[in-house]
Structures are given as structure tokens and as C-alpha cells.
């Protein structure tokens, strides 16, 4: 460990704000890169399942749109 204390690590001789904000922004972007496709996949599968159920199981309970 290069730094002596947590405070020193946070401060980094006045450069702390820059370094840490850079790392946090990167963490945010990386998290989005991993999380967004997983969520899309999950949501798509759920939507497809609903679609299959609708087309196979006749009328859904809430949708009585007869014209």
C-alpha cells in the first residue's frame, strides 16, 4: 500500500477528486455495459413468454377489445 492512511488515499495530494471521479465514472459505465444487455435479455424473454401465452391460451383476462 502506497498511502499511509485512508485520508491520504482519498486526498492524493489534492488530485483525489480527479482520480476518484474518473474511477467512479468508469465503474458506472462498466456496470451499464454489463447490466443493460442482461436486463434486456431478461425483459425480452418475459415479453416473449407473455406473447406465447396470449397466442396459445386464448383471450387474456383484461383484453376484451371486440370490434
Amino acid at each position, binding site marked *: *500500500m*502506497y498511502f499511509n492512511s485512508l485520508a491520504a488515499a482519498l486526498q492524493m495530494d489534492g488530485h483525489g477528486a*480527479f482520480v476518484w471521479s474518473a474511477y467512479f465514472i468508469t465503474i458506472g459505465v462498466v456496470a451499464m*455495459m*454489463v447490466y443493460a444487455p442482461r436486463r*434486456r435479455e431478461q425483459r425480452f424473454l418475459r415479453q416473449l*413468454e407473455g406473447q406465447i401465452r396470449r397466442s396459445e391460451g386464448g383471450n387474456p383476462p383484461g383484453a376484451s377489445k371486440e370490434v
Partner: protein
Amino acid sequence: MWTLFHKFGSPPWLYRLSGSILRWLLPITLLALVGGAVWGVLFTAPDFRQGNSYRIIYIHVPAAVVALAGYYVMAIAGAVSLIWRMKMADIAMRACAPIGAALTFVALVTGSIWGKPTWGTWWVWDARITSMLILLFLYLGVVALYEAYENKALAAKACAILSLVGTVNIPIIYKSVDWWYSLHQPASIKFTGGSTIDPSMLYPLLFMITAFYCLFTCALLLNMRVEILQREQRTAWVRALANKGAAG
């Protein structure tokens, strides 16, 4: 060889393969990223001229390097999709664009944050930075074009053409930006380019670059999986998957 090529063309096979790869690659990647960052931020000595702001290099440089490489991955996938009409190459190409854009964005933002303490300004029109900005434009152009097409099969073809045109152009863009910069020769700011880097800084840096490559692979596979499902939504295997997913 040819059978492998065909296997890569088979969506369910790729879907399952990517699932099993991701199962171990994704955790390892995330661990490596965290570990490398901790190594770089907390356990290395500061650069003697730039002090602690140098620690941004452990994300800045890997992101920049992988973002550049990503464009070539995208272009190769585009070429394969146009020449052999391979559906999976389409999908890979499409998946590269947002990832590359995200990494370019990281490189630009971290670079810009680095620039403030180092040069005293958020932004300079340096050759390397300018060409990175243009790379971001290129990536976002592909994303925008893909989003604009409603028919995704056609969207992929259009993007393949665009990324191939881009491939021809990237070296030209790089060269031209270099010339532009040297032509004007602003005296005020210079990269320390060529300064030898201390091994104690180099190892975590190389480690982080590897980790970013793994991250790119993971994100690529994750994005491809969604795309495969959406393209193949009428096939039996996706429908079975949906039913299973809902039950489980």
C-alpha cells in the same frame, strides 16, 4: 475448419456456448478489473512529474486501446457478414458499436479529467485526442444508423457497409490528424510521449489492458445473446427458452 465456421453460424449453438463462456469469464473479468484498479490506485508509486493524477492511466489507457481495437473487430465482423452473409457476424458487428462507444467515452472523459490537473484545462485539440473524438463519432454513427432502420436485417447490412468504409478511413483519419497537429505545432502543450515507464507502473497497466479486453469480450457476448434471441424469436428453441425462463 469449415464445420466450425458453420457452427458459428448456428444461433442456438452460439447462444449456449456464450452462456457457458460467460459463466466463468464474467466473474473473472469483474474481479480482475477491481483487482487491477486497486493495485494501480493504492499500491504503486506516483509519477514523479504528475504526482497522483497519474493513477488515472490505469483506466484511461486500457479504455483507449480497447476502444480502438474494437473498431477493427466491428469492421471484420461487418466484412464477414457482407461477404459470407453470416447472420452471426451481423449480430457481432451490431453488438460492437455501443461497447466501443462506451469505451471511447470512458477514454475521453477520464482523459479530460486527467487533463485538468495536468494541463490546467479540460480539453485540448491534441492529435491523439482529436482522433479519439472522431472515433467516438464513428461509433455513434453506426449506432444511430442501426437504430434508424426498422428492419434489423437491413440495418445490419447498412452498418456493415458503413463500418467497412470506416475501416478504410481510420488510418487516413489518424494520419491526417497527426499532420494537422504537426502542421500547426502549438507550443503550449505536449504529451510526454516516449518517456520510459517504470515497470512498477507497467505491470498493473498491462494487467488492466488485459482485463479491459476481457470486458469487451464479455459485453460483446452479452449483447449478442439479446440480439440472437430477438432475431430468432419465432424459432422453437427460443420459445422453449422463454417458457422455461418464465417457469423458473
